[in-house]
């Protein structure tokens, strides 16, 4: 177990000239001991690079990796005492499930009875006890990946367990199951878990702290609630949530916020930098309002989607689109249909303000 501090940058080419040459832009980050973290971002954002830098499969081109304050930048994964689970199941074909799980312990000269006990415990958690004596090669992809997970979790003294999109090959209904298991295992074993994924649901349900990455940069580190309520960067707002946050271009003058010709009044005494800004509001917080409500905009409905439990209504104001997640589309006896005009409240307690894509208030 260890606290991990990163202060580094990585480029795969020898002489990085500009930002786009870096797989990881210079960053400082701390992963606390015993935490459950997720690295979330689209493909190619540098999350796997970051994971491999932590595990020691990759040496960063500059900077250091510290485990509990000790510099391990040049150390191998073995020396760092890291466990890692890969995207595709890696199993030892000729061994049984039990031998697979025992392999990392056997290589570290554990006593046979202790190995047996620990393997039994891990198999119990993963619900694989019945398959312990089966040969690993003959099992399904799900079961094989469970073995890979098990091998990652079997050593109780690891500095951290790193997961590189481990549930890619798993059936959707089993994904829930395994994610729940991982969370439970995290509670029981108190290991530091770091989980790479491009699936926000996976990240938000698994982790206590989510690191959102894009183009080699960690744009926000925060709890799932933080990411939802106050995205620090428009990328985060857009990436997290389904659908993502609405952004409305606006102009700030001395006393008002102008969206096109419509002036919105700020609810409280709030100071915003004057000039161009963006209002960010989650579709969940966009509500239907009375005509001429101070924080609302008159909008024309251009799409109504029924997604079963609720409706996604897309509306337009002077070319700017806003999506609202509404429980019901019947308001004041009238039903929202394409073409109807409705006032939607976009300025409220949950609204965030962005200048140059960064949050300002």
């Amino acid at each position, binding site marked *: 177990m260890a606290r991990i501090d990163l202060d580094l940058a990585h480029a795969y080419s020898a002489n990085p000239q500009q930002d786009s040459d870096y797989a990881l832009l210079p960053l400082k980050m701390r992963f606390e001991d015993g935490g459950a973290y997720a690295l979330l971002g689209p493909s190619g954002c540098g999350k796997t690079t970051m994971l491999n830098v932590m*595990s020691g*499969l990759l040496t960063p081109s500059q900077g250091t990796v510290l485990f509990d304050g000790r510099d391990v930048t040049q150390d*191998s*994964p*073995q020396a760092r005492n*890291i*466990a*890692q689970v*890969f*995207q*595709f199941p*890696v199993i*030892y*074909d*000729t*061994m*049984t499930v*039990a*031998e697979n799980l*025992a*392999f*990392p312990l056997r*290589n*570290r000269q554990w006593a*046979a009875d202790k*190995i*047996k006990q620990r*393997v039994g415990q891990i198999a119990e958690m993963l619900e694989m006890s019945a398959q*312990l*004596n*089966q*040969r690993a*090669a*003959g099992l399904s992809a799900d079961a094989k990946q469970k073995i*890979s997970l098990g*091998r990652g979790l079997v050593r109780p003294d690891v500095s951290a367990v790193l997961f590189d999109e481990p549930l890619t090959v798993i059936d959707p209904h089993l994904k829930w199951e395994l994610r729940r298991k991982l969370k439970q295992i995290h509670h029981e074993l108190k290991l530091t878990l770091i989980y790479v994924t491009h699936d926000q649901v996976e990240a938000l349900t698994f982790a206590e702290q989510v690191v959102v990455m894009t183009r080699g940069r960690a744009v926000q580190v925060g709890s799932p609630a933080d990411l939802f309520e106050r995205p620090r960067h428009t990328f985060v707002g857009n990436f997290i949530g389904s659908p993502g946050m609405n952004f409305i271009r606006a102009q700030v003058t001395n006393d008002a916020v102008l969206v096109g010709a419509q002036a919105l009044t700020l609810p409280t005494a709030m100071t915003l930098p004057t000039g161009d800004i963006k209002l960010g509001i989650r579709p969940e917080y966009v509500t239907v309002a009375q005509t001429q409500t101070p924080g609302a905009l008159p909008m024309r409905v251009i799409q109504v989607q029924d997604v079963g439990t609720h409706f996604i209504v897309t509306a337009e104001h002077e070319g700017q689109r806003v999506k609202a997640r509404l429980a019901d589309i019947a308001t004041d006896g009238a039903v929202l249909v394409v073409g109807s005009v409705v006032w939607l409240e976009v300025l409220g307690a949950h609204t965030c303000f962005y200048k140059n894509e960064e949050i300002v208030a």
Partner: protein
Amino acid sequence: MSTTIKPVNQKAWFLILPVLLCVAFSAILPLMVVVNYSVQDIISPDRRVFVGTEWFAAIMRDEELHGALWRQFIYSFSVLAVELPLGIALALSMPATGWKSSAVLVIVSLSLLIPWNVVGTIWQIFGRTDIGLMGAALQGMGIAYNYTGNASHAWLTVLLMDVWHWTPLVALLGYAGLRSIPDAYYQAASIDGASKWDVFRFVQLPKMRGVLVIAVLLRFMDSFMIYTEPFVLTGGGPGNSTTFLSQFLTQKAVGQFDLGPAAAFSLIYFLIILLFCFVLYNWMQSVGTESKEGGHA
């Protein structure tokens, strides 16, 4: 639920007719000719007598043939015992990427391009003590090397020749198998704390199993039918020390015109190869796939 049964169209059998014709002309008819010879005594082109299993009984008692068969087995297993580990070792030490790997691949495959009789001739000269590099060198080291006179020297030279000629095939197959192992396996093994030997034993070898089965089959069949190289190098001598099965059979059939016994043994020869391939293939496929019991921790 629909209970209609799919209509059965027996005409589909005609689709396999071309294959049947090909196989008939390439395999079944020649084989039947041999069967035909094996049960008859052909005295002259128009006088032939049906003798039943007499030839089979005769060759079973043929001491010379037993000797050739025995030599053949020892030789084929020696070939496998040397070429397999050597080929794997070679494959493991070949560079994986870059121009070096291309260069090594070309160099390694060179010997595979040389025809059998040329290989025999090369080694015939190579082993000569007056002008041959190897022969002269061994002589210089004080070893009385003489492949034309010493039976074990001749046997070893034929073996060495085969190893030189065909180990690259095993190496290339092994190399292909190694390249198909995803990096994650090596990374996982390193994280699990596996030693180099463990990586070989638990990752590389199991992943190479498929190609190694093919290597064993090819090398077994090929070496079991070896003819040209010893024929060119030693003519089967000294004595009969390097007279392997096919040469023995050729002598019988073409040299002495004992077509009956030769045909009878050809069939047995064929069955031996078939049997061995069958057994080897099944064994190699099942190695490590049977469910282990009681292997817990």
